[in-house]
């Protein structure tokens, strides 16, 4: 089968946009794991909460941008409360406890949202200026996908600046390596952890808000993406932000090209990719525990 060059370029562009959402999700998961050593099984649930936060605020205010911003802040706030009252008491205990807690939280939150919003998908309308595609010589990409790519790029630049250049970011990085030492300097490390958790789930909320405009907000929408997000993080290496970015890019391209060449394999292709990478590098591409 001969594949035109423009089609390959288009698949790369669409794969990039797909990967961008995975990157947002995986960066959040990585921050939480790297900082707290918590495997957040509720990450997809915070993604879902972000979608509903966008739905509610866009319905109330009719503004897409308020929807995006509220998804980060409302979900971050829920994350702050969750970490403070539910996860914090489990620090220092068996790592299985927070894992089970986040799993239970995801089941409870999903059912709660079913009770409130029902099981019918809620639509977040896309602003008119994002509808349509940019086209040039057979190459095309929808405007909103370009926005997703640049939004993710902006978030990554923010994260880089935050972790490398700000005092708070440097304290967080230090706390991931040696929290005891940071504590002896008089820094309130538990509050740092809470902030890190809120930041991580806020990114998941943002991803949910973005996807609610091209899919629908549904209570069980977080289930599948949680699994995919873990695949991305495992490929990149647990605790590595660079790994999360590379993992997201790889999975985006894998889905894009498998969809083109053998669409009925698109569901399993990401798992085969993970398997192959783990066979070569058992800790993932950049795996090194406890590093941001």
């Amino acid at each position, binding site marked *: 089968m001969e594949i*035109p060059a*423009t*089609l390959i370029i*288009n*698949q790369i562009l*669409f*794969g990039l*946009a*797909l990967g961008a959402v995975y990157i947002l999700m995986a960066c959040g998961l990585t921050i939480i794991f790297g900082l707290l050593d918590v495997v957040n099984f509720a990450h997809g649930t915070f993604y879902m909460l972000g979608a509903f936060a966008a739905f509610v605020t866009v319905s109330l205010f009719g503004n897409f941008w308020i929807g995006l911003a509220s998804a980060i802040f409302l979900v971050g706030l829920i994350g702050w409360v969750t970490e403070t009252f539910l996860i914090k008491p489990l620090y220092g205990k068996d790592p299985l406890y927070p894992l089970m807690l986040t799993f239970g939280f995801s089941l409870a939150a999903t059912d709660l949202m*079913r009770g409130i919003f*029902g*099981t*019918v*998908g809620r*639509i977040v*309308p*896309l602003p008119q200026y*994002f*509808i*349509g*595609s940019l086209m040039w010589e057979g190459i*095309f990409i*929808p405007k*909103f*996908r370009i926005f997703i790519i640049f939004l993710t790029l902006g978030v990554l630049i923010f994260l880089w600046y935050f972790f490398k250049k700000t005092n708070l970011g440097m304290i967080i990085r230090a706390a991931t390596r040696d929290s005891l030492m940071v504590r002896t300097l008089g820094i309130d490390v538990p509050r740092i952890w809470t902030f890190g958790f809120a930041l991580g789930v806020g990114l998941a909320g943002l991803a949910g808000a973005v*996807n609610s*405009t*091209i*899919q*629908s907000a*549904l*209570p*069980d*929408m977080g289930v*599948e993406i949680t699994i995919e997000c873990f695949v991305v993080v495992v490929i990149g290496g647990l605790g590595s932000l660079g790994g999360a970015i590379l993992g997201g890019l790889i999975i985006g391209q894998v*889905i*894009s090209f498998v*969809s*083109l060449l053998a*669409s*009925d394999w*698109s*569901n399993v292709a990401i798992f085969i990719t993970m398997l192959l990478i783990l066979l070569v590098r058992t800790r993932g591409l950049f795996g090194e525990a406890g590093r941001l």
Partner: protein
Amino acid sequence: MVTVFLFTGLVSGVASAKPIAALLFPLSGPFSAMGTDMRKGSELALEEINAQGGVLGQKAEVVMGDDEFQAPVAIRKYKEMVDGQGIKAIGGTLSGGISVAVNEWACKNKVLYMSFCHTSIPLGKEQCGYGFVSGMIPYQTGVATAKYAFQNLGKSWMIVTQDYRFGHDELSAWLTISEKMGGKFLGNIYSPLGQVDYSAHIPKIVATNPEILVINVYGQSMDAIIKQLGEAGLTDKKMKFVIPKSHLFTIKTSGAFYTENFYGGHTFYWTLQDKFPKAKKFVEAYMKKHGEPPSQDSDGGYVGTRALLEAMNVAKTTTDVDKLIKTLKGFKMDYNKGPEEFRACDHIRTTSVVIVRGIGAKASGMNYGQVVAEIPWQDTLESCENNKNDVPYGKVKLPGK
């Protein structure tokens, strides 16, 4: 109305009598919007039957619940009601795959099963005698939409197919009719069940540039692909979009993206009330109860439930499965689309397919689309002999399978 919701603890009405039927719908999962409509149709039928004196002189009690869009869950819940409550008539489900599994279970356990959806249980080895269908066989909407499309919209076509029994049956029908009517098949894309991001397929669709793109997916997947085609700015160009089994909810939620380029197959559309007086009565009663017009899944739930309960009155039994089956064979109805029946040989409802064209941004109030054709059942349903042997559609070699 006397309805008990399975496992939810919700009971409405007086649950004094013993339940006589168990109905399950996908109230959660990717088909939840459609499953909810189906339940609403069943509730209306139950209410009407009870208003007319109930079943065998008593208010009918019917158990309704969520099958969670999973065959094992559906079978477990049906089994609990059959074993625990002595129910001998079950109904519902909204998936070709799940209904085939439930039908197999019903046959083994000698329980009457009224499927409300598009299902292949009247075909070939699935035809076991205990299953009836108030929806239709998937190939029927495939045949109806394909015939309409090749006559009116163009010849070259590409299809996105949900990768399970329902999607395969629709694809078979399209391939068969395409060959008969000189269609030009340009390719198929299989889509896993529950897929909600189709963006990676859009470059291939654009590069192939068919006159007709067949959207052979259902539920949330159908809503998502339309949204993403619209987002890419493709729904108001030259390409026509044909959906073998569309849905009122999808038209509503797709909004302006469901343009005049969209043509969907439905077993019911509310404007049929202009043609059939009884459809008007059905639409008005449904609107009064639920505050919205009925969809084709409302119709499937309504007709299936009403027929099942009326058959119990005619057969004078709620538990004698043989008598109920004998009654339902050839059972004549005139509920909401003119005279219909459950064909005696294969237990399929003889009903037409309505083709509804989108109106995009012009949609307002209840006005979401325009009926452009009604294809009679005689033009879509194969003979008893063909269905028994699952020909011709069951013998089609599907691409990549």
